[in-house]
Each structure stands twice: as C-alpha cells, then as structure tokens.
C-alpha cells in the first residue's frame, strides 16, 4: 500500500514536470517570435520544394513567389537581408498565419472562401489555372484526352480533387510530391501530370527535365494566388499597392519569364496580370 502511494506520487511529479516543461517551451518560443515580428524584419512563408515558384537552393531561394515577396518586402521598407524565409507546406499555411509564426505567405496560395474564414488575403498577384504537363511528343491537348490514361497529382491537392470530381474516367495516381510524378512520367508509366500551369512550367524548366516535357496550355480552372496574412493584419493595402507597382514597372512580367525559362510556357493573358482585389 505504502509502495503504491509512493509510486503514484512519483508518477504525478514526473507528469507535472513534463507538463510544465512543455508550457515553458511554448511561452519562450512565442515571446521570441513576437519580438522579431515588429520593426524592420519580415518572416515570409514560401514553398521550398517548388522549382520556379519557391525553391530552396541550399540556403538561397529562387522562384516567382520569392521574387514577388522580395519586391513587396522592399516596398514595405524591408531590405532583402531582413527577410526570413520560412517553409510553408500547403497543410500548414493557415496555422502558420493564425499562430503568428509568419507575417505573410507567398506560396501558391489560392484565395478561397473557406480560407478567408481563418486568414486574410492581399492580391492576387497571379492567376494560375490547372493544366497538364506531358512528354514533348505526347498528343494530349486537354483533360478530355485523358480517358483511360494515367494521370499523376499530389495527394490531397485541389488539382487531384478536381480530376476526381470532373473526370472520373481518368486513372489518377497520387504521390507525395510533384517530383515523384515527374520521375514516374519520365519512366513512361504516367501519361500526364496535373496542377497549376505555373507550377508545371517551373518543373519543366528544371535543368534535369529540360526539353523532356511541355505544358499543354489549356487551363481548366482559375486559381488566384494571393498573399496570405493573419486576419488582424493591416498590411493588405500596402501589399496591393506594391503588387500594382510591380506589374506596372515590368518587374512582374520579367520575374515570370525568368522563372519559367526553357519551359515553352506563356501565362494566360486574359486573366493576367491581375488587379488586386479590395482589402476586406
């Protein structure tokens, strides 16, 4: 009896220590990031694994999202050295914003009504559309040609869901990332890869893939890439002004051309360049 009581007390003590350790860690992390939030520096969420948009090249970052982010930051009075790029995988974007772990997100972030319930958006700074990437010698010209073919997309992505809903005759393969899809297409078992056209263009313009694949250029959706912001952010107006300026002075188009070089890609001229929507 005595022994069990001691054991129970020990367990309780250990549990209390563990819990308090958790609380302490959380507090210090929060105050630390809070300190960085104000003033001259910015934490910007981008993708690290999307060539042409947001790509980690061993500490330096390249891509269209990154270029727009740098331009906007510059307009907000933050120099390039004071930007801290943070990885923002699709599933984490809302959390990063609502926990104030990043100040803004440029990560192929489509403006949707569900997302507007938890985060705010500036922009759009680009209107992408779902498209297909196929081998250069393929005769697929659109989603209608995919009946019975093998199509690859990323697990859980909007693009994958759209195919399931609208083209049930297509055999959809879902992979953790687009790199796996492109590798499989190189092997010949996959006939096409689908997602937003500019992401596909970035993949096709990678050195390893140069000349092997082409973007079909027949978009079948409209994805308005916005700048994700915490809901209480007051930066929306300034960001929109910066985006408009970037479009007007030609830096916007130059950034797209530079980041999709070699992919034989041209963006949808009817929808681009976009006019930023009024801030809510």
């Amino acid at each position, binding site marked *: 009896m005595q022994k069990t009581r001691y054991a129970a007390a020990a367990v309780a003590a250990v549990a209390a220590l563990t819990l308090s350790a958790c609380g302490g860690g959380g507090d210090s992390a929060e105050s630390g990031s809070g300190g960085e939030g104000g003033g001259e520096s910015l934490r910007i969420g981008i993708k690290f694994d999307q060539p042409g948009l947001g790509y980690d090249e061993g500490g330096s970052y390249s891509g269209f999202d990154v270029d727009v982010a740098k331009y906007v930051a510059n307009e907000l009075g933050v120099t390039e050295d004071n930007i801290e790029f943070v990885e923002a995988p*699709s*599933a984490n974007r*809302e959390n990063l914003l609502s926990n104030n772990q990043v100040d803004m997100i440029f990560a192929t972030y489509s403006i949707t009504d569900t997302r507007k*319930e938890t985060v705010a958006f500036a922009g759009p700074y680009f209107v992408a559309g779902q498209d297909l990437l196929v081998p250069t010698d393929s005769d697929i010209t659109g989603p209608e040609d995919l009946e019975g073919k093998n199509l690859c997309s990323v697990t859980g992505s909007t693009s994958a869901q759209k195919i399931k809903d609208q083209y049930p005759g297509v*055999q959809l*393969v879902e992979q*953790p990332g687009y790199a*796996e899809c492109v590798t499989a297409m190189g*092997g010949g*078992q996959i006939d096409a890869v689908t997602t937003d056209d500019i992401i596909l263009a970035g993949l096709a313009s990678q050195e390893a893939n140069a000349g092997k694949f082409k973007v079909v250029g027949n978009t079948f959706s409209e994805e308005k890439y916005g700048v994700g912001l915490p809901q209480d952010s007051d930066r929306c107006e300034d960001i929109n002004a910066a985006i408009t300026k970037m479009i007007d002075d030609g830096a916007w188009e130059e950034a797209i051309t530079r980041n999709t070089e070699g992919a034989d890609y041209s963006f949808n001229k009817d929808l681009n360049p976009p006019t930023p929507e009024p801030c809510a």
Partner: protein
Amino acid sequence: MENYLSLFETYNVPAAFWVNIQLSFWAAIWALVIGTVLALFRISPIPSLQWFGTAYVNIFRNTPLTIILAFGFLGLFSVMQISLAGELDDSLFRIAIVGLSLYHAAFVCEAIRSGVNTVPVGQAEAARAIGLGFLPAARLIILPQAFRGAIAPLGNVLIALIKNSTVAAAGSVAAESSSLMKTMIEFRSDLVIPIFLTFALGFVILVIPIGLLTTWASRKLAVAR
C-alpha cells in the same frame, strides 16, 4: 459542431480506414509467412541459410519503410514497369502490400526467434533423441511452443503494421486514411485540430483491441514451465 459533422458527409472516413485494414490484413498474412520461413532459416543448422536470414533481417529492419514503399512506386512500378494487376489502383495497392510485407517480415522473424528462445534447449535435444530431423522437430516441437511464447511481440508487430499502413501513401495508395486526412486539411483548414483528433481516435479504436487481445492470449496460451 455542425461544421465538424458535415465533414463526414463530404469525406468517407470509415472507407479510408477500411483501406488501411485491408492493407494490414494482407501484409500481416504475408509477413507472417515470410517471417516464419526466415526464422526457420535463422535457427536452421545450415550456415548459408542462417546467413541469408540474418542479412535479410538486417537489411529490411534498417531501411526506412517510406523508402521501401517509395521504391515500390518509383523503382518497380515506374522504371521497371512491373504491374501486379490490370487496374492501376489494384496494382499500386498490391505493390504497397508487397512493401509492407517484406518490411514487417523482418520484425516477425525476430519476434518468432524470441519465441524460440523461450523454448528450453532440452526440448530440441529430446526431439533429436527420438529421431526427428530439423524440419519435423521445428514443426512439431519447437514452433508450436515458440508461437505461444511470441504472441505478445507478434501483437506489437501487428500494431506497428497497422499504423505503418499509412505510409502506403508514399506508394500512391491515396484511398487510405492519412491521404484522406491530408485532403481534408487542404480543403477544411478551419478544422485542422478536430480532423487530426478524428484520425488519431480512429487508430486508437483499431489498435487498442489488438493490444488487449494479444496480452490476454499471451497470458492464456503461454507454456507454463
């Protein structure tokens, strides 16, 4: 709350778990078969078979499952163009089962070998003394006792297998639960925490009965000495 319940109208959560159960079921059977053969190799008197068993266990036990399943998709399916069924989905499903079986066979083998260690040496000596060869001795004397001693560790392997079946997402089995969870989070980011808890609870419901059952069975069936 209503928001949360509407999730279940849009997404078929039980169906996703059913895919994991099917993956686990087939992989468990194959892993048990392969693992038993490997355990026989490891306790056999033939050095080359012992060597093969040890090499297999060391290689597969030390290779991350994600890599094995990603190899199934990228290596076997994409590059070597191996197809295990006419339908694409079935083929990927079976390739995932192959990956899961090969990986867990290494752990099954070790569980059975630990069961063999619970059988006193005298049992094997007695079997030899009445004139049984290696295989009859293993089949009639050693393995029946070894399995009864190995129930608890085998249960642990099965529990690990059920949880690991979510890694099949790396092998493109997108109908399983972790893939569905990813989809749900992508579209209903306002409910991230409840979605996580739902899937965590799903696995608790699947796994706890197995733990209870194997603990009970290992007590009930252990050979009293």
